[in-house]
């Protein structure tokens, strides 16, 4: 089967985990990895898997985009770098899957906006945040049954899985994620809380979703909507599950989620990172399927 060729910008943990996932894809073929550190473990692994690599940054990739027929670029650098990277590659006709918090493109969650990708003229798809990928599908599923006055998310992650970028910018994580609960999931208002837990052995990523509903809650419909949505997410994040709930309490619906990673490059407890790379791969595959048709 023909595959769509792609490049990964960044050679850190996320990029390397993504590389493993793309390698397993039936429709995506990673051919380039771009880094800035020649000693990086990610670049070494990429070279070992037969990818072309450069440690001189995005500028050295650009001349090869046409030549190597790259159609999708994944960016796992930083919000600031992404703005520059997109500026350099967008003229080359590629589609971008952005794993940074830059959010200059469309906020995209595979299990929610599935069909929109190839119909819209969008070329830059933003993966929001780990908490966003984990919780927007559930809030969206609930919003298909009842109007949600207020959605609240508590995302707990193991200390070992939260990198320096997120640590320095927790405010950005809170704002980006609550914005997605409103714009992507349809809640009227939203709040996000993040806890970084250093327990040993590391805890799996946990997310508690609470929704406040003004009408009488149709419990059967909510149970059904959540069950179906979890199955959709599990197609690309096999370790995604409802650990407890949904619990119904007066005008509230509470769902306790757990995300266990696939353990590609990152360990299974880092479900928060795995769900980002898994969502990025799924988004890339949907784009590729459109291209291949």
């Amino acid at each position, binding site marked *: 089967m023909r595959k769509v060729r792609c490049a990964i910008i960044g050679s850190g943990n996320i990029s390397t985990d993504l590389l493993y996932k793309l390698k397993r894809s039936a429709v995506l073929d990673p051919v380039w990895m771009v880094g800035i550190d020649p000693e990086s473990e990610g670049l070494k692994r990429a070279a070992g898997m037969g990818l072309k690599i450069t440690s001189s940054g995005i500028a050295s990739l650009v001349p090869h985009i046409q030549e190597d027929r790259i159609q999708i670029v994944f960016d796992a650098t930083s919000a600031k770098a992404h703005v520059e990277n997109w500026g350099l590659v967008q003229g080359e006709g590629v589609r971008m899957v952005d794993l940074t918090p830059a959010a200059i493109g469309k906020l995209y969650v595979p299990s929610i906006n599935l069909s929109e990708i190839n119909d819209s003229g969008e070329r830059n798809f933003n993966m929001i945040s780990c908490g966003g990928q984990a919780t927007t599908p559930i809030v969206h599923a609930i919003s298909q049954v009842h109007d949600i006055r*207020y959605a*609240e998310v*508590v995302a*707990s992650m193991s*200390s070992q899985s939260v990198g*320096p970028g997120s*640590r*320095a*910018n*927790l*405010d950005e994580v*809170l*704002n980006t994620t609550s914005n997605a609960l409103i714009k992507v999931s349809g809640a009227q208002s939203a*709040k996000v*809380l*993040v*806890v*970084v*837990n*250093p*327990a*040993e052995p590391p*805890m799996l990523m*946990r997310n*508690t979703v*609470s929704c*406040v509903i003004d009408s009488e809650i149709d419990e059967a419909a909510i149970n059904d909507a959540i069950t179906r949505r979890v199955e959709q997410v599990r197609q690309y994040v096999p370790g995604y599950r409802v*650990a*407890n*709930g949904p*619990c119904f309490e007066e005008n*509230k619906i*509470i769902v*306790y989620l757990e995300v266990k990673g696939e353990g590609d490059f990152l360990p299974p407890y880092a479900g928060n990172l795995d769900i980002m790379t898994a969502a990025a791969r799924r988004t890339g595959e949907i784009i590729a399927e459109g291209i291949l048709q």
Partner: protein
Amino acid sequence: MNAKITRDNRDILLHDMSLRDGMHAKKEQIEVAQMVAIAKALDSANVPLIQVTHGAGLGGNSLQYGFAVASNEEYIEAVAQEMSQALISVLLIPGIGTIAELESAYRAGARSVHVATHCTEADTSPAHIGRARELGMDTTGFLMMAHLNDPAGLARQGRLMESYGAQTVYVTDSAGFLMPDDVTARIKSLREALRPVTEIGFHAHHNLGMGVANSIAAVRAGATRIDASLGGMGAGAGNCPIEIFAAACERLSIRTGADLFALMDAAEDIVSPLLDEPIRVDRAALTLGYAGVYSTFLHKSKLVAEKHGLAVRDLLVELGRRRMIGGQEDMIEDTAIDMKRAAP
């Protein structure tokens, strides 16, 4: 309102927690007028710092931590304008509160802040500490659940906070788990690691009855700021009771600058009548200290245990075993459901 804390006649600074940690004891239901009355009593008793915020700090109003009867800004503004000498402080836990909320609190009149992280996660606080300093606020780095890090580790975290701009670093015994010797070791370790100009503080919880003893141990080891509250009003079995601590300091010739009798009167005449139940080391609060659990879990754990037919002590011990930390109140019910499933 003064912009500067005076050190005249003070060996240490008392930082009152009645209107922040004490919010937990009242399930966040303190009226604005009640706050103003308590703060005025503390101000006239010459307490230099008074914290005024939702129990979980800025951004605390939520399903997770409960909704207070007024916004943080309403509380701060109402209190700040009545102060003759005291500075108003706030609590800010990155991951719960944001810089935008800090700026809003500053506009409402807050001039001091505890920027709090778990005792191993100081590097989630540089932006918040940095912004507080830019605003000219008296800025503290507040290392919570300090029993979960050893003295050397705590010193490394304290140095990080100092490097971000914290002028004071606190050992925060959120679970009321530490014994006086543990406090001494942690304060000494920080004192050796930090620059002489950086102050050390201590925040007690009284779950094992050590609130006053631990605070005295902290001062002996080099702490110059102590958090305390009227009648001990705070989460779990409460904080170090400020009137008892002030009396103990007088006996030990440690100058707090506070009016002891005025504090005793405020605790007895204003705070006691306002409490729904006395602040004391009951069985559940004792379990917090024994099992090393975040004191704020107390009320929700009681409710959840009752709802699911569990003993609150069993639930708290399990939460301690799972190493749940400050902010993870959602995991109380999750854990209870797991326990019921395992042993229906």
